[in-house]
């Protein structure tokens, strides 16, 4: 049982999707009526039960994981012998938090989509397929397998945005698809190059790391190691997204339905930084040294640029989307600190980066869920109405105001999420952001000092939008609003608990990730020495 737990974790949602497709025919009869109540309920419950089971499994995985035990729960089978492709799964301290995050957000995504009306079968089966793909990415230790899962995410995401999204959904869907595909095809070439440089040829990431140092070649006068690093980096950077590859993100977020935004921001963005840490760092450590300053610079640009954009937004969801760009910048800054000569600095940076990945996942999920809650109630999410709003009387005016008195529970959770987002101490975001800055400061002083401005900018847009929405006199239009219901609370409360718990007691998370990440730091630093940089 335990040796197949990762396969189980990956394919449970896919099995659920299959069951839905089969069950649909039996329940609705042959003439498929467009989702009567009974079939819709069936699909929802299947999705909830399967993702719920996956969540329980992932928690069990967390509990039985031994922090100092290296890669665990391995599964190793030959898949395509002629190309030496393996079905190789495993978990370590880097992937474990993200696996739990994926399972959690998938379950929450299903619960928060309970009111979906349009093609329920399609929606939930695609959501489950997406879940399978995401889980596969985090569990794979074979580059080819990783790539297959990586690409498998695109198709369900395309449909989820394209069918169930907002008015500009088609443009947003194809833009997302094209951007990420552009990144991943470059990754494909880098992957093939690495395969042929590995002796004996293999996609096994462990084997690749072992022979990574031996790659010495030039192409048109350029170091092949640098070319591979850059190709991989662009692929992952688009996913993060690193400015200037970020333009797909606000659009996709604004158009996507709530649950998809949650998963997009909560899980998919992490794949970019996960890929960098999983593949670029151990494979080409000397290039990490060469590019560390650039990564830190890009991180700081992300922090500032994302925050400045967020300040300029009048659409709450777009503001949250840009805040993600800003928050992912902290991860990059922390990651760049791997080159720090002080052990404390590099450890704080890398561990902080991984923690920030998890924390941002939970915080941004809360933010998007809360935006979704208000959107469902009032069918818009403007802080200010735009100047060309359809109702000229409202155009340019303040949209909300004084909701705190109307929706006390809601405004409380929003306050928690906003404060977590701006990095208030005792909430999880503070710990990881501080660690990223500590790490960054030990190497890149000036950059980090500029980066800390981001905290201030974050505070500006979060506090200002909170003021505009919840404080002041309440407008008559929103007098009769009801507060959050039980289902909505079910999605928010677990996240809130995690945010507070990790803010007060970050050791819970650090104990799991730090052994793995500290050995990654050692690996990178010693391998870089071996290759001859540093």
């Amino acid at each position, binding site marked *: 049982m335990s040796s197949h737990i990762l396969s189980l974790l990956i394919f449970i949602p896919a099995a659920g999707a299959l069951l839905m497709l089969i069950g649909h025919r039996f329940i609705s009869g042959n003439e*498929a009526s467009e989702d009567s109540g009974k079939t819709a309920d069936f699909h929802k419950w299947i999705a909830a039960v399967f993702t719920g089971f996956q969540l329980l499994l992932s928690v069990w995985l967390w509990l039985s994981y031994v922090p100092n035990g290296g890669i665990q729960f391995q599964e190793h089978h030959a*898949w*395509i*012998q*002629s*190309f030496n492709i393996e079905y190789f799964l495993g978990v370590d301290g880097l992937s474990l938090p993200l696996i739990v995050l994926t399972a959690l957000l998938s379950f929450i995504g299903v619960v928060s989509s309970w009111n979906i009306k349009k093609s329920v079968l399609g929606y939930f089966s695609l959501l489950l397929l997406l879940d399978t793909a995401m889980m596969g990415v985090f569990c794979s230790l074979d580059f080819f397998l990783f*790539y*297959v899962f990586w*690409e*498998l995410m*695109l*198709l369900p995401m*395309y*449909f989820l945005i*394209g*069918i169930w999204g907002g008015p500009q*959904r*088609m443009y947003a*869907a*194809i833009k997302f*698809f*094209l951007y990420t*595909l*552009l990144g991943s*095809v*470059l990754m*494909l*070439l880098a992957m*093939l*190059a690495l*395969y*042929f440089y590995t002796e004996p040829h293999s996609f096994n990431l462990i084997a690749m790391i072992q022979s990574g140092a031996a790659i010495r*070649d030039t*192409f048109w006068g350029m170091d092949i190691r640098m*070319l591979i690093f850059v190709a991989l980096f662009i692929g992952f950077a688009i996913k993060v997204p690193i400015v200037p590859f970020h333009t797909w993100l606000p659009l996709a977020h604004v158009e996507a339905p709530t649950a998809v935004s949650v998963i997009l921001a909560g899980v998919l963005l992490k794949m970019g930084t996960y890929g960098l840490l999983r593949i670029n760092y151990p494979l080409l450590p000397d290039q990490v040294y060469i590019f560390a300053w650039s990564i830190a610079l890009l991180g700081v640009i992300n922090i500032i640029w994302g925050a400045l954009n967020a300040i300029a937004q009048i659409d709450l969801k777009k503001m949250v989307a840009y805040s993600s760009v800003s928050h992912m910048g902290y991860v990059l800054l922390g990651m760049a600190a791997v080159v720090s000569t002080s052990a404390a600095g590099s450890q704080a940076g890398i561990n902080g980066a991984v923690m920030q990945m998890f924390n941002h996942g939970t915080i941004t999920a809360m933010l998007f869920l809360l935006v979704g809650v208000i959107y469902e109630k009032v069918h818009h999410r403007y802080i200010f109405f735009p100047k060309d709003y359809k109702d000229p009387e409202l155009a340019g005016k303040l949209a909300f105001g004084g909701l705190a008195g109307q929706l006390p529970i809601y405004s409380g959770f929003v306050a928690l999420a906003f404060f977590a987002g701006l990095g208030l101490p005792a909430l999880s975001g503070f710990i990881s952001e501080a660690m990223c800055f500590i790490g960054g400061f030990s190497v890149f002083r000036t950059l980090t000092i500029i980066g800390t401005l981001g905290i201030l900018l974050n505070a500006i847009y979060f506090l200002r939008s909170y003021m505009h929405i919840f404080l002041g006199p309440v407008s008559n239009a929103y007098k009769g609003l009801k507060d959050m219901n039980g289902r909505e609370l079910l999605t928010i409360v677990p996240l809130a608990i995690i945010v507070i718990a990790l803010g007060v007691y970050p050791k819970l998370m650090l104990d799991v990730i730090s052994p793995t990440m500290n050995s990654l730091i050692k690996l990178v630093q010693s391998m870089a020495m071996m290759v001859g940089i540093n």
Partner: protein
Amino acid sequence: MSNFSSIAFYLPELLLVLTILAVIVVDLIPGLKRFNWIIALAGIVFTGVLLYGDSGVSESLYLGTIASDPFAYFFKWIFLIAGFFTILVSRHTHALRGADLPEYNALLLIVVFGLFLMASATNLVTVYLGMIETVSLPSYVLAGILKNDRKSNEASLKYVIFGAFSSGLMVYGFSWLYGLTGSMSLSGIQQGLAGVQEPLALYMAILLVLAGFGYKISMVPFHFWTPDVYEGSPTPITGFLSVAPKAAGFAILMRFFYSVFTTNSLTTIAGVDWLTLIALLSAVTMTFGNLIALQQENVKRMLAFSSIAHAGYMLMALSILSPDAIKAVMVYLTMYLFMNMGAFFMVIFAENQLNAHTLEDWKGLGRKAPFLGALMVILMMSLTGLPPSAGFVGKLYLFAVVIASKKFYWLAIVGVLNSVVSLFYYFRIVKAMWLFSPADPKPVKADSVIGLSILLFTIPALLLGIYWTPIINLIDKSIGF
């Protein structure tokens, strides 16, 4: 081997010829006329049975003009599968209802026979016979079989003109080769060329020969016929032309270039660098095909341009001299057979049931026929080359050849960027099918034969992307010529 003793190794082809005759004769007997398609299909099936018995034989037949070898054997299966389903599906194509089907079936079988010849030809005369006489001439008629359709007439005429032009160039190239070496057989020419002192003359011959083959695989700049012929021909014929003659074109191209313009130690002959030429043509072909496909509104025409791009991808591997390159092209052709013909069957379905031709007509098709619509998504995914699908595996092998050689990295980059471009137009079809609501949401049902054919071609298009070891094992056995 002498003519007489060769017959024992030529039974599949002979059975095909008999089938052709039978179809023609049956056409003349009033009571039996309607059974002609059964005879045609049965002929193909039994040819397959005979072919199956042939496996593993490597003989040079008919005084060295035709080879029976594993390489040809592999391609013959592609032709048989394509031919079988084309005949089957044609009967259920509404647009072909007025056409004279016995004649049509006979012509199609002649083309299949010609393709057999092309894949196994080892002499300049048989190359020409196979390519022009037995494949091209009946194809011209098939393209124009809808006598009252102006587009079909246009297709036929364009096909003839471009075909005649490029085969003229090719024959001229053959005459250079003959003049340089004094031999008609491919192996004789190779030996003769080894001592040739005029690289310019040889380069000329290569260019001219490439014109003829390039026409068959619709390589830029010999592609001009492709969109109009594909659009005007009856759709089953379009599907067939986009796969089978293209496969045969690649078969002859690989055999010719590897056994004539390549020395036995895998270097280009007499130092003439035709590899860079192929690399350039590959880049131009895929880029051109994809960029023009972007602007198409007619689904069939879009697929036609995209088939030009696919030829470009395959040429990419041929710019590298290695056995892996041949293998990669064969893998790609196998995958391409399933995904491309599947897509054309879907076009037939849309034309039959909804008279849908443009993307506008396709809007909401996924909602009207969810199952087939989902299959079409898999086919489009496969044609784009997204994992897990057959098309991705095909591309994987092509790119692997280029990357492994460490030679044309730029070509690999052009190739992947083209894949991204192709996503845009393939997903325009997906978008039309699924992201729009249909004007009339009434479900449509496919003709069972068409629906089943789509399913039968989609299953490998997906499964071969997940597990393709059997195909690789088959191809590994089929590389020698």
